[in-house]
């Protein structure tokens, strides 16, 4: 399989995630787009691991680390979203502008 196949697939998923983060205003949708971007990174890591035939399996190990960090991120993120919803009755990120100058 050409190395470019998974790389272009990952680039597409990452760009879709970037679009989602910028174009959505609902905080849960932004979290979902971030998951897409993290997955694109993982595809890259596993593809290069297979391409380089790494003896240490670094790509796959770091893909597992990224999955764990993504789980932590989405847990904390949803807790913050729930807290915002409880306090302000909205999860639109453009209405949460308390720190805006």
């Amino acid at each position, binding site marked *: 399989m050409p190395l*470019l196949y998974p790389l272009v*697939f990952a680039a597409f998923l990452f*760009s879709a995630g970037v679009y989602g983060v910028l174009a959505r*205003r609902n905080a849960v949708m932004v979290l979902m787009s971030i*998951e897409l971007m993290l*997955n694109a990174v993982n595809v890259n890591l596993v593809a290069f691991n297979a391409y380089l035939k790494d003896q240490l*399996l670094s790509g796959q190990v770091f893909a597992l680390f990224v999955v*764990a*960090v993504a789980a932590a991120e989405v*847990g904390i993120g949803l807790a913050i979203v729930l807290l915002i919803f409880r306090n302000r009755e909205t999860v639109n990120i453009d209405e949460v502008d308390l720190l805006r100058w």
Partner: protein
Amino acid sequence: MTGQEVVFLVLAVVGGLAGLLVVTSRNIVHAALYLVVALSSVAGVYLLLAAPFVAFVQVIIYVGAIVVLILFGIMLTRAPVGRRVLDNTLRARVGAFVVGLGMFTMLTWFMADAWSGERIAGQAVTTTAALGTSLFRNYVLPFEAVSVLLLAALIGAIVLARRD
């Protein structure tokens, strides 16, 4: 074109379309379900790249846990529906489209420039034993750091979400 490439292209088209629908769907629950399709096709890509353990971890953690967590988040924030509450203004969406398209073009261009003739060939399937050996022999310190991070995230999420 080998059978592996055909399967990969099918998975990539399905996953790419599902990824697009995640970021454009007007219904937030549909978006979460399209996310399941996209993440599952990424798991299939891991299988094709001879990484079965990562593929199963992807299915268990992403499809099994993270999507369920997101669905709970949607439910607890009263699942708003419609373009007006889910999407930004038209101006911001056009800007986001330009950024996303530019990023895809740039990444594809650079990678085609750097790795256009290279092939992934003759990779042996990674056994779970080999992955575990590498994880607990060469990467045991980052592994412990990740476990502490997960503990911190767990405590933080409980502290944030509990009602006093």
